[in-house]
């Protein structure tokens, strides 16, 4: 079987090419290439969206930060606008996989893959980001938390594309940080990851979002843990055993060769605790 490779120059071209039978969008091709080598995906037509100008760049649009879906992790890591507006995001992109993955992999491709141990969905969920999905029916906006409905599965239709990632710009008093646990190699998937966003109103936390990655089919919202953070001061982020306990209750890891379910559960608590320590000690700039 041969595969046709179409390089789309515009969104319309891409959508038209995707409308055919058995077509698959490809941006950097990191995961599509791997999965094809393993025989897990195949397509009669691959539609490259990497060269579409409209899917590039980072810009501020009012109180929103708009990230082109075909931006590579490596370019996002050094993008001046992103570094200025959301340094924690840029830092996260700079630590995805290894330099080869960062050179080719894109944020849109990453979100479309919906692999539960990936970094961007966890932090973007904590930031309450949205994606713009385009298709024949026009654009629609979907929260990152609602984008994936299970491992390797999203609500993006076969003839649709993610065109943008939209992140709120930081508000006053906001702190956010992300950490991942890499007990094996530096370029491994996270065994456990944790992202926390809090908004201080004066000395106390007024709102919080806590998400953990690699411990459930999609990024796990730890709402109970987040509720426990509300009302605390920065100093009170040093004693968060109750929060860690709520995190352990929220996650639903499966055991595999990367670790037992119990171990991943325990590490979720440890890493949320460490993220909170970082925020408590003044890290996680807004």
């Amino acid at each position, binding site marked *: *079987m041969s595969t046709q490779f179409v390089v789309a120059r515009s969104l319309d071209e891409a959508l038209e090419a995707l409308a055919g039978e058995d077509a698959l969008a490809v941006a950097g091709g990191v995961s599509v290439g*791997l999965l094809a080598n*393993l025989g897990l995906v195949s397509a009669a037509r691959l539609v490259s969206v990497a060269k579409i100008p409209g899917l590039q760049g980072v810009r501020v649009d009012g109180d929103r930060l708009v990230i082109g879906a075909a931006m590579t992790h490596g370019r996002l890591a050094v993008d001046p606008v992103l570094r200025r507006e959301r340094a924690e995001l840029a830092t996260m992109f700079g630590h995805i996989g*290894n330099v080869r993955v960062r050179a080719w992999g894109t944020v849109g491709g990453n979100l479309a893959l919906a692999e539960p141990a990936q970094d961007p969905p966890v932090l973007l969920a904590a930031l309450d980001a949205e994606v713009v999905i385009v298709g024949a029916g026009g654009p629609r906006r979907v929260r990152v938390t609602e984008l994936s409905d299970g491992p390797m599965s999203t609500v993006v239709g076969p003839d649709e594309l993610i065109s943008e990632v939209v992140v709120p710009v930081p508000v006053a008093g906001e702190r956010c940080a992300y950490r991942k*646990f890499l*007990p*094996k*190699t*530096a*370029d*491994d*998937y996270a065994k456990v990851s944790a992202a926390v966003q809090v908004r201080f109103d004066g000395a106390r936390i007024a709102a919080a979002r806590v998400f953990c990655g690699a411990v459930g089919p999609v990024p796990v919202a730890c709402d109970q843990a987040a509720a426990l953070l509300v009302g605390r001061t920065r100093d009170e982020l040093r004693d968060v055993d109750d929060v860690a306990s709520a995190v352990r209750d929220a996650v639903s890891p499966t055991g*595999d*060769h*990367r*670790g*037992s379910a119990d*171990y991943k559960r325990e*590490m979720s608590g*440890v890493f949320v605790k460490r993220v909170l320590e970082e925020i408590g000690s003044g890290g996680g700039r807004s």
Partner: protein
Amino acid sequence: MNGAAKVDGGAAYVADVRAPGALHVAFVHSPVAHARVTGIDPSAARALPGVVDVLTHREIGEILLGRALRDYPVLAGDRVLCVGQRVVAVAAVDPATAQAAAAAVDVEYEPLPEVFGLDEAMRADVPLHPRYAEYPGAVADRPGSNAQGVWATEEGEVDPAFAAAERVFDHTFTTARNHSAPLEPHACLVSVTADRVDIWATHKEPFNLRRLVAEVGNVPVETVRVHLSPVGGDFGAKGFPFAEIACYLLARRTGKPVRHTMSYDDELTTTATRHPARVRLRTAVTDGVIRALHAETAIDGGAFGGVKAVPMVVIPTIHAPYGSYAVANRRESCVSYYSNNLPGGHVRAPGEFQALFASESQVDVIAHELGLDPLEFRHANAANARIRRIVAELRSTVEKWRAEPGGTRGIGVALTFRDTGPGLSTVRCVVEPGGVRVELSVVDQGSGSYSLFERLTAETLGVPRGFVRIQAVDVGADPVLQDSGTGASRVTAVAGMAVVESCRSALAELGGVPGDGDGFWPARRLAELGVQSVVAEGTAAAGWPAPPDVDVRSHAGIAVEVGVDEESGRIDVRRALLVADTGRVFNEVAHRGQLEGGFVYGLSQTLLEELVVEDGVVTTATLGDYRIASAADVPPLEIRVLEPAADDDGAVKSVGELVNIGVAPAVANAVFDAIGVRLLDLPLTAERVLAAIKEQSR
């Protein structure tokens, strides 16, 4: 083959060799661990366009392979014994068609009771190989009908030493299944004509492969030629013909060249692995001196013993534990057992890695129990002055590290040694007016050996390296050239010395005086002698074990500093020192590469690597799941190469498998130093370390 060609892509590895019209082979692998094969229906596969031939045991009968014990069938007969075992071979016009045809073969399996893990394998009352005694290379006297092999030795007065001992230390250590993970997967290409067989293969023992093909094909060995392609990494993997024989048989049947290149998935799931081992050490100590050792190693040999090269069908653990110490009274054994896991094979220092993790950990335990400094205890028990010199070097650095501020950390050390593997090599030196050519049939498996041969030739004859050419001669093209194959850290000591011998003989014919770097002196000398060329052969050999009166071993000491995250169990190796006494250094870059590579290889198998097998199925079947350390995971490593000792006499020593075997105990000892927790099981994964921390505090 020089380094530049490997960097710029010019080097032709087996998969690069062009063969127009060649058929591609795909295998049907068993999906079950133990079953009777009740039916094979290849009709759907044969019917696919592009499929040329399908091979099963019905066509070829029983052909058993094995480096020592021959128990490994080319294709399964009436039973499969592990997941991944090759059952059917399909030849087709392209790889995709071959894969599709393999998937279309219908094989019926009737499940049989499975044996997984060492305990089950040791207890199994129904042997997995009931015809064991008929296999060529079968071990006559083995402990139980499910054993693959045994090696047992006894030296000195063991029982009296234990009876008189002040203290006896008894510990059991376990190690995991690792993969050798070479960069290049296995590949082969076979062409058969009426009077000749040509083979290209990722095989480090081409002379053995040639003999095997001649035997299987019942053709004169002189008609079989093995072409020497560079091997893209070996680490023990490239000594067994997993696919070559099926390809040969298909080439003979179809009259077309036939090739196979293994996917990395198949590499990880259908080849062979480091043997998971259980090592029990009982060690008698009196007055701070190690008096006697009783070492028992049991290994899960997997479905077949044939991948192992040791004649006793075990791994080389004998004489390895406490090998750096003067322990005269030794009782040692290694026993391998059959199971329905994938077979064990050779991975860089195939038995020493397991043995030294145990003994260099136990040395530390004993020192602490006796209230002695681990370095002091090692010094007091060291086998000779050469080892004491290494201990002294380690101590000076360890003391310096301890004096530095550094928070919670631990420092651990280990001693290692390495014998040169046995072997024989014959090469030819040809001096002509245009330069010097050395002809040899030695496989280049990526350690820079050809550069070394070039340098040795240039040095011996006193000509610039640019006047030297190393020419790989295909095995079978020249009946004089011989080689035992690469492996067992023997290339420099055997093939390298054969090169020197051949050059010396040629030099003698040229008057016996080497040049001073003038590349044209041989041309002038040939003209004076009135001859066109001088041709001389050289042979060198190494035995095993080495003669007892001289220390021809390499020795090394490793120190590492670690931090331990006590909430997660993650070990952070912060820096390391390697002290190496490896005799004469011929090529500093290649030497350092072997030492550094050995450290990284050892560190990776200490902290990360475990080929996970659940119910016979490898679940870490890609390099994304079977993680290997890369540059980002390696701490700063200081390498201190000691000047050859006075009594070394220019001895050529091995380095390839000297270092990786000592990293695991050094790290485990450092963890104990840091947090007082003793780790007995490899790899030292974060989860395992955390469990040990919790166990201790319970």
